[in-house]
């Protein structure tokens, strides 16, 4: 019996034993087609999904290779049904192809007539297609290029898009590699994207996604629309682009709630694009205002639903998605696949960390025992108030104060959900508070001060969840969060995972009230972090001194 590192489970998960000598080779072999689901210390779990298999197909892998990899690395015989299923699923990709016909324009062709018959019988297809010019070809309304890809994916026959792209309005952009250069994986990511035409690059927080975007722009040398999550993020993109490319401040426009500039490179926020007045989207014109050659989507996993709809109409333009994870809380991974494109590059988080680009983090859950009065109050609280009560209990404030004391001299972030609590913490810790009402200017001032070390502790609300860059934070203390979202956890962890000058490890504390709903949410976080492979400990607040 072969002694491979991989165990194929009947629920289509793949278990990879990390300690096995062939584990690294096996990981490289399965990464193209299996999604890494969990990566705790000993056994990593990958999952075979239709999307994952189609991503692999899009990247040029065929079923034979996948089956071979499974058979070669599997410790136990792989059930034949699973292999058949893999081959069958992968065989579905590319039976249908979108292409440009010299006389008929956009057409859907097939290599398997029965499949075309099957999909054309679907009611959803009827409004998207025109006449059938021959048994294997049907005309597609040019405006429905995105729609048809979405529908076909839902029908289980994802189409390959060979219809090509418009070049867009040319604009000279060069990378300014003075004293720095693209890392190898960033280079690979850009090449993977450019070769595929459109698609998503998956890189962990802090791995330099902005640079991948900049390099893609330098390859396209065309006007570019960049969609980002919020204004702070927009500013950072702008300063990064000015620093890393030949672009000047004047060539980059910001299209946000406050400013409406349209320049050769325009950075817009999701919020302004999806603003709706009287049922219409007034800022839709942005997409048509220039002949964009490239559209960059930052944080694809957070992309709001309306943007998918706009994107459906932009299928003739090159699209680059950037994200730390393909997993979406709303399960719309399929839309990302069909509208933005297949995954073009993926680097395992842990692997990049091992290369030294991301600081390892030590996660500690501190359990706070409520006082008797607090417990009584908690028990009598209204159900909707319970979380708030236990998350903001006064006992926590004392513990946070202790922790900040312990890490005096290190850059410390205190992250929370509730403004009252943050204000109170700010007072107790004598630290500035950044919350929703803080102006952008003030935020940037405080962030700068934090970066330079003038401010050592900063209390932030959930605004910190999005694309801010705090390079010197070595300690993060989370006091409350919004109901254990995995997304949020990835973001928060990202805050302290930035490379440190002295290579010191980062510390991530969660302060949790014992025996309350807070502890249940913490269990979710714990699971997520452990699954990401981070060391995780639980200590009682009374034992912090002895166990740290």
């Amino acid at each position, binding site marked *: 019996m072969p002694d491979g590192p991989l165990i194929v489970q009947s629920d289509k998960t793949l278990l990879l034993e990390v300690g096995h000598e062939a584990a690294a080779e096996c990981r490289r072999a399965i990464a193209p087609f299996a999604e890494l689901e969990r990566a705790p210390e000993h056994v990593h779990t990958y999952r075979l999904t239709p999307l994952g298999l189609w991503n692999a197909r899009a990247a040029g892998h065929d079923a034979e290779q996948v089956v071979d990899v499974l058979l070669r690395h599997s410790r136990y015989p792989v059930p034949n049904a699973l292999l058949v299923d893999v081959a069958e699923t992968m065989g579905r990709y590319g039976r249908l192809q979108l292409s440009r016909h010299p006389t008929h324009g956009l057409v859907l062709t097939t290599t398997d007539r029965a499949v075309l018959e099957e999909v054309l019988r679907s009611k959803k297809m009827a409004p998207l297609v025109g006449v059938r010019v021959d048994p294997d070809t049907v005309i597609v309304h040019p405006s429905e290029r995105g729609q048809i890809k979405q529908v076909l994916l839902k029908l289980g026959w994802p189409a390959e898009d060979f219809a090509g792209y418009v070049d867009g309005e040319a604009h000279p952009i060069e990378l300014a590699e003075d004293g720095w250069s693209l890392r190898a994986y960033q280079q690979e990511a850009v090449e993977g994207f450019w070769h595929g035409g459109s698609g998503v690059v998956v890189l962990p927080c802090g791995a330099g996604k902005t640079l991948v975007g900049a390099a893609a722009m330098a390859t396209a040398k065309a006007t570019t629309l960049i969609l980002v999550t919020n204004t702070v993020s927009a500013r950072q993109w702008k300063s990064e682009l000015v620093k890393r490319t030949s672009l000047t401040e004047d060539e980059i426009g910001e299209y946000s709630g406050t400013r409406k500039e349209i320049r050769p490179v325009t950075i817009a926020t999701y919020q302004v694009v999806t603003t709706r007045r009287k049922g219409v989207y007034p800022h839709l014109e942005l997409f048509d205002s220039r002949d964009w050659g490239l559209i960059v989507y930052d944080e694809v996993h957070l992309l709001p639903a309306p943007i998918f709809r706009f994107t459906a109409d932009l299928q003739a333009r090159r699209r680059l998605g950037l994200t730390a994870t393909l997993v979406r809380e709303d399960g719309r991974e399929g839309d990302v696949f069909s509208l933005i494109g297949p995954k073009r590059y993926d680097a395992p988080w842990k692997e990049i960390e091992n290369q030294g680009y991301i600081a390892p983090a030590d996660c500690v859950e501190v359990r706070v025992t409520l006082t008797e009065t607090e*417990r009584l109050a908690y028990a009598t609280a209204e159900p909707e108030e319970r979380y708030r009560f236990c998350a903001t209990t006064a006992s926590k404030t004392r513990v946070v104060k202790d922790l900040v004391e312990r890490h005096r001299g290190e850059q410390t972030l205190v992250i929370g959900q509730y403004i009252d609590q943050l204000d109170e913490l700010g007072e107790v810790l004598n630290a500035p508070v950044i919350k929703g009402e803080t102006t952008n200017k003030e935020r940037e001032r405080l962030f700068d001060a934090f970066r330079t070390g003038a401010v050592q502790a900063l209390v932030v609300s959930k605004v910190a969840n999005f694309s801010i860059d705090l390079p010197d934070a070595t300690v993060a203390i989370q006091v409350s969060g919004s109901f254990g979202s995995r997304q949020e956890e990835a973001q928060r962890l990202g805050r302290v995972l930035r490379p440190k000058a002295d290579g010191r490890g980062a510390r991530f504390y969660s302060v949790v009230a014992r025996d309350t709903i807070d502890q249940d949410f913490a269990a979710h976080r714990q699971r997520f972090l452990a699954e990401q492979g981070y060391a995780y400990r639980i200590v009682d607040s009374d034992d912090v001194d002895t166990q740290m």
Partner: protein
Amino acid sequence: MTTAASPSRAEADRAAESGPRTLAEDLRGRTDADLGALLCARPDLTTPVPVDLTQLATRATTRASIARALERLDRFTLQVVDAAVVLPDGFAPSRLHALIGTAPEEVRRAVAALREQALLWGPDDALRVVRTVRDLVGASPAGLGPTLAGALAATAPSRLQDVLADLGLGSTHDAVSAIAAITDLCTDRARLDALLGQAPEAAREVLDKLVWGPPTGSVRGADRPVRADAARTPVEWLLARALLVPAGPDAVVLPREVALHLRGGRVHRTPLPTPPELPVRGFDPQAVDDLAAGSAFTAVRRVEDLLEAWSAGGPPVLRAGGLGMRDFKRAAVQLDVPEAEVALWLEVAYAMGLVAGDGEPDEQWLPTPAYDTWRRTPVGTRWAALAGTWLETTRVPALVGTRDDKDRPVGALGTQVDRTAAPEVRRRILATLAALPPGSATDADSLLAHLTWHQPIRAARLPEALFRAMLVEAELLGITGRGAFAGYARPLVEGRVYEAGDALTPLLPEPLDHVLLQADLTAVAPGPLVMDLAHELHLAADVESTGGATVYRFTEESVRRALDAGRTATDLHHLLATHSRTPVPQPLSYLVDDVARRHGRIRVGTAGAFLRCDDDALLGELLADRRAAGLRLRRLAPTVLAAESAPDTVLEKLRAMGLAPVAESATGDLVLTRPDTRRTPPRSAPPRVAGEPPTPTEALLAAAVTAIRAGDSAATSRADTAVERDGEPVELPRTSAAETLLALQAAHADRRAVWIGHVTREGRATQHVVIPLRLEGGYVTAHEQGTGEIHTYPLHRITGVAEVG
């Protein structure tokens, strides 16, 4: 319409002068080895063993037995049967060759097989077809119509004379000679060719449509007499010349002689003397075995998982028997396998007697004690038992979920899942696959075509979908891997089931005694676990994923379950520390301690429900908690609360609130709640539905032949003496009970003497000439003429009655 047998009847009378006159005589002339071969080929004849050769001959020509024999014939032999039926009795094999048109050797082989099975008999140059075979083949062998003699039998003599005139034949005196003249014309190649040469093109087209059958076509007013010169349509042209014959007011039929001529003297368009080729795809035999062994292991595990889940109380048995659709679907979800697969495991477990109704008023499906016995055997043996049961059972899992004749869904474990043909088909599939070189697979279509050639009649009876399902089932059971027969499973084909199990054992993964513990609170068992460890882990953790490995997840609930079952925190720490290959993650130890810390802090009494807790603050908290209001709690003492609700409600509510109370008995002990393992009373496996009787062993065959011979020589020697004495027939015909009674009543009424055959209590066959005196209560009292004595014979011992010459 007359049957195809009718023309031969006339010819049969003119059959060979020499040779055996009856099938019984033919059998009597065979060697013991021949008789053994007959009984072996038609095992239904041995149950019960016939008394003598006469009875064997009678039994061998019953409709049921012949039908069974025909079912077992291959495509080519059936083609030979068609041709033989076309010929009049007493034919020479050369005429058979001519009708089939393949190499004589192939026909000879088929004829030998048919003779061995007593479907053909008589001397080599004058073969006869058993009449029942003619009846069963029916009126249109190979799509041929009736002979002219049969088709024209009912025609008016005047009309026949018209036909003769139109054919240019001289008129005759009677109908018989008229028909003979027409037949002569139609069997004369040259004359018929000449006649057909005159036929208009359209008439040829009509003939072409009917020539390969079905031989009848519908035409309005077919029975109107038409003369050749009055014929206006092609059909009328043919009718006038008896090339088509009316078969009713609106139907015409193509006479057999004409059809055979048009078919070029052959009965079949394509004789198929050999089975279709099996295209073979080769895999590495070792890889096939490994893969199949994996499936075999999974199969055993699935059955166990299924029955374990029902151990604490299974789903109800429907009033009409069987398992409800909803429970069936639930089982599929529970096992996380497709429904077809669950049907397989359920039906095999049922057929093996591992699961049965418990017989209680509200009947439930529960594992039987046999399940416990089975589970204690090694995995290889367990698998062998499953595979052997699958092979032999008449239950067809693929029928579950289909619709019956009345369009009602067929449920699992119900009464409609039996098909008698199933075991035979499975055996044939496996035998065919096993005959391929190791590691070779073929595709389902070719296999189906191959098996269909071997037994076309049976194959037509089992729908193709069921056949295909069987291939899938063999794969799931680990008998095949990628469609190729697993090496270790080969003994299965020869019925050496447990040998197959032993051969499988070395391929199974060794049970492990360790797991990998991780900080995300999972334990991964990278292979099957030793039973004790598996049991403990099942208690303390939830199973998240199964397959080659098992992933367990520890949760607050699962740890609490272990504590509830009497494990202590120390036990759990010990379990984790001993069986983990890696250090126990801190969060896991913390979880165990944390749950243990809270576990049992609150105790709930069974009588009247009270809550006790050392921590009076906790009770205060509980009292104040609005969620607990429904329990109507009161404080009895600083550390004791009382509840109005029943203890189980209280427990549930408190747990819902996130507390970890335990139940307390009246004496103050902890009540341990472990789900009871339940079993049915002893149950045997359900009886197999009678299908094919088992193939007799050689010893049995030899004994049967000896017994028949002995019985036969006794019977014939008695008959011979009777012949000498009275010149009466050698054999008394066997008559049915009703006929016997009628004949005896008639003889009694007329005071007439009759022959009776009588079997004594010792089983000796005797014959007597008697005058029945009294008939009542199943006995006949009669005066025996030979001895002049009066005897009483039980009616059921009288084998036959015949008139005295």
